[in-house]
């Protein structure tokens, strides 16, 4: 009983920490070039999960448009630039800003904004073709973005 209570207290405690340190999409601070200096989740990114987020069609599916030689995902697209050597060209804050909302760094980019909840025209409820209503959430979570950034930061040539 006592052990259960302590566990419960610990869970409440960790929840409070998460809530305190996750930056909502409306509160993200971009610098004038579109970079984001601070972590969005407050938890270090996991590059291994970043691979999963980038490769999975139901998550980021970054390889739909970008080629990454290091990834085994089939049929990598070429609408966007190759990400080989991305970490040589961009630092962590720049990578975070591009993944969260590339249109701030590159105003004409066709890349979707993965950490944005407002400003859409006829936003839908995922891929149903129906209106989103009040249900709209960011395309990726704060932690998924941190995981992707952690993986991209390993792409050096």
């Amino acid at each position, binding site marked *: 009983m006592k052990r259960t209570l302590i566990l419960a207290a610990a869970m409440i405690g960790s929840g409070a920490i998460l809530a305190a340190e996750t930056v909502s999409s409306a509160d993200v601070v971009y610098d004038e070039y579109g970079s984001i200096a601070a972590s969005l989740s407050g938890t270090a990114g996991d590059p291994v999960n970043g691979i999963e987020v980038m490769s999975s069609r139901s998550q980021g599916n970054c390889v739909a448009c970008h080629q990454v030689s290091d990834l085994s995902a089939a*049929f990598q697209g070429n609408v966007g630039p190759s990400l080989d050597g991305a970490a040589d060209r961009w630092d962590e804050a720049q990578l975070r800003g591009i993944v969260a909302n590339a249109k701030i760094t590159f105003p004409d980019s*066709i890349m979707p904004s993965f950490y944005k909840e407002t400003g*859409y*025209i006829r*936003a*839908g409820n995922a891929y*149903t*073709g129906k209106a989103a209503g009040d249900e709209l959430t960011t395309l990726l979570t704060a932690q998924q973005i941190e995981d992707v950034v952690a993986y991209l930061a390993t792409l050096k040539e």
Partner: protein
Amino acid sequence: MKRTGLLQAAGLIGLIAMATTATAQDDNQLVVNGEIEMITDAPAPENIGGLKTIYSGWRFRQSEMQALQMDDFENPGAYAIDEGVEMWATAEGSEGKSCASCHEDIEDSMAGVRAVYPKWNESKGQVMTLAQQINDCRTEQMGAEAWKYDGGDMTSMEAAISLQSRGMPVNVATDGPVAETWAKGEEIYYTRYGQLELSCANCHEDNYDNYIRADHLSQGQINGFPAFRIKTGKLTQTHNRFKGCVRDTRAETFSPGSDEFVALELYVASRGNGLSVEAPSVRP
């Protein structure tokens, strides 16, 4: 139905094999049944921005899929022609009329029709698509019920009518009374819809010939519609395809037959002015 399912399965297996030998937009020539020479590239119409040359979607397909469209005995969309021609002569509705009662031989009366639709209808005072015109005939002349805009009956009838223009260059009007609708279609074409914020132009003007995963992006031309889609195993109507594209931007779509899609169809059709009518085409 069973035949369609088998064809679809065969097609899908073929696709998997083909995907490993992807080629870029090619120089192949489309000749159907060894006699109908199709125009699959042409200079871009002057009022279309962003393109120098227009290409039929056929040019972006694998050679195995291209071949399916070159022979009507191989074309899995050909079933709809027989259905459409049969319906053409079938009386329906309170007036006891069929299409043939007024328009007689489909081969004569419908030659060239597909190539100029959507077009202005003076008595209605609006731009009408071929599907809208078909339904107008049904409800106003035949006393029959309107077909579902992108349903199987409509799609088959559109295919049968479109076949009579096969090989003729698309030539829809963009000025005069249709100018306002055309401009609305152009605006829709360049609007970035949905949570992915993608316009038609982002993929089909800025990135045609590139790949989104295994999808080889074409210019999104509609000169081949109705098109048999390997993915769904059936003939697909233009607005149905529009709907799927808009849905894939994580957007709330427009409805088939809506003012927005009518305007978009006119605009997109005009981007293909000069390409041959290909229906029924074969696409992924």
